[in-house]
């Protein structure tokens, strides 16, 4: 008797479970279909395209070319630049510096033509790094430098803002609102405003300010001079994202129990001691997650570079977009996309490992 009453009940339960499972998949179906169509399938297409020479709006037939796109993007070489000699065989010296031959003389031309990506001095000698696609190599380097410096500064400034705002004071809620504004504003718009502030004569804010302070000649070309391009664009990015960082850190600060500080005060700890022994260690998990978000975000930076530099200097993302839209080279753009994808993946793994962030 006991067995016969149990059996139908069990079947009923599994019927219910099966019905639940069916409902779940029906509910998921629209989302999965959409994400497949606009996410997973295009990603697979990108991997496929990266091994072809497909161009759009071209009559050239599409062929499978293996890893040639990757070879074109990643081929690099280092060569020493010879010292420039005059007719007497003596080194040419201008402004007290030895002059070097142009990279055109030393970089290989066959079978692939190399162009100079960077030049650098090392132990009194001068070297050139040549690349088949110098623009891409430069874009990777620039994006990584941009990411490391910008994220470090954002974290520092974000922390200062968060610590200042963690205290109660008159006007605190207004400040918290003001912090959301740089985050919410369209990146294109904030980039345009900053571009105008960086104007290359004294009608721009920074040139007018520096002129008044007696720095520079009032005609500093912040966005054109290669040495000033990166600091300028990093300044724009830090302004836009440090408040966001501060908000996350502020939320993290709020979770630290007050009793810990009280206990530390009883033990006679000063402010600095309290910061390094309580605040910082307990804030670290929040900071780690914020760092991951911000790093991945910075590595794919597009809007800022596109608006401020256009085609003068690329980030990885603007390079891929430009190669696709203006050069109409789908295959090469796809290969660049895959490399970006892999670089982001590597950064994500390094972070997860070193900061022990568990998903």
């Amino acid at each position, binding site marked *: 008797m006991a067995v016969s009453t149990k059996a139908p009940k069990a079947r009923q339960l599994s019927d219910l479970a099966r019905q*639940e499972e069916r409902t779940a998949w029906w509910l998921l179906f629209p989302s999965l279909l959409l994400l497949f169509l606009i996410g997973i399938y295009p990603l697979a297409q990108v991997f496929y395209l990266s091994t072809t020479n497909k161009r759009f709006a071209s009559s050239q037939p599409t062929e499978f070319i293996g890893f040639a796109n990757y070879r074109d993007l990643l081929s690099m070489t280092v060569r020493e630049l010879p010292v420039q000699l005059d007719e007497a065989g003596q080194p040419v010296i201008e402004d007290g510096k030895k002059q070097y031959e142009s990279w055109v003389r030393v970089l290989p031309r066959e079978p692939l033509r190399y162009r100079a990506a960077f030049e650098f001095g090392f132990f009194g000698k001068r070297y050139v790094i040549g690349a088949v696609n110098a623009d891409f190599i430069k874009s990777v380097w620039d994006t990584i430098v941009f990411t490391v410096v910008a994220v470090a500064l954002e974290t520092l400034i974000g922390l200062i803002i968060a610590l200042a705002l963690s205290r109660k004071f008159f006007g605190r809620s207004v400040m918290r609102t003001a912090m959301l504004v740089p985050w919410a504003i369209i990146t294109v718009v904030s980039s345009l405003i900053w571009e105008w502030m960086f104007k290359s004569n004294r009608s721009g804010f920074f040139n007018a300010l520096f002129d008044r302070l007696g720095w520079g000649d009032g005609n500093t070309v912040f966005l054109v001079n290669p040495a000033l391009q990166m600091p300028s664009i990093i300044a724009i990015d830090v302004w836009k994202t440090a408040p966001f960082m501060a908000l996350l850190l502020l939320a993290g600060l709020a979770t630290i129990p007050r009793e810990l500080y009280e206990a530390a005060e009883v033990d006679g700890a000063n402010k600095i001691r309290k910061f390094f022994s309580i605040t910082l260690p307990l804030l670290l998990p929040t900071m780690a997650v914020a760092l991951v978000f911000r790093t991945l975000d910075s590595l794919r930076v597009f809007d800022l570079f596109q608006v401020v530099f256009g085609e003068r200097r690329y980030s990885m993302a603007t390079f891929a977009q430009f190669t696709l839209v203006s050069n109409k080279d789908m295959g090469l753009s796809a290969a660049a996309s895959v490399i970006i994808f892999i670089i982001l993946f590597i950064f994500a793994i390094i972070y997860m490992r070193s900061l022990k962030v568990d998903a």
Partner: protein
Amino acid sequence: MNKQTRKIIGEIFFYILIAIIAIYLIFPFYWALISALKTEGELIAAPATFFPKEITFRNFQAVFTNTAFLRGILNSFIVAGSTTLFSLMVGAFAGYALGKLRFRGRTPTLYTILAMTMFPAVAILSGLFQVIKAIQDIAWLNVPTLVLLILIYMVFTLPFTIWVLTSFFRGLPDSLLQAAQVDGATFLQTFWYILLPLTAPALVTTGLLAFIGAWNEYLFALTFTLQEPGSRTVPVAISQLGGRFAMQEPTGELMAAALIITVPLITLVLIFQNRIVDGLTAGAVKG
């Protein structure tokens, strides 16, 4: 120096720091505002003045009569609004399934969606280009570019929406579900009459973040409206504003336009600031 004086000096430094932070955050907007209010002559004069000598509203007038810009605002409202609405609809179903129902394949699905929230948009650009081209080639379908943009934007709003709603649904007590089951409600009835009303706050938060994300999007908008100026959203329209007057950079108008499209966002932020902060920090802080 006694304790009292030290405290006062500390206070003064603290308020100076707060003032510096406030100026840092607000200054670019101040600069945009005075630039938009300056006359053309004063705008290009060096050195720049920190307060306009003569205030003019000509730049604002010019922007409000610029059809390309107004069209951009309309397009942006259509695209961002529809994207948000569809993401919430489709995402709420998925979030309910992932948060409250037991079925095989739940964990892998959840992880795939989490991975997609970190997806770099540029990684799928050329692939999407192919998909969009294929859809556009179906002549009888004649899909407008704006609809395609809405479809594409779901690639970044949907995974995020599903992820947030899943954790919200999971937080609702199981007893609610069981009570409904005892009363003989189907899964869909439970979802519709019991769980959805309870998730309204989460829907508002994720909806806001999705809207802001779609409103600000530039990469896809720029790439896919290249041939079609009529479908440009605000970020693209404003970035192309300069190109329309070849002779001179219309800086004053640009700044006026920048301020005009910042107003709706600031309004949203002012009304919903607590919700936005909750949504932003939901993933980052383990309470």
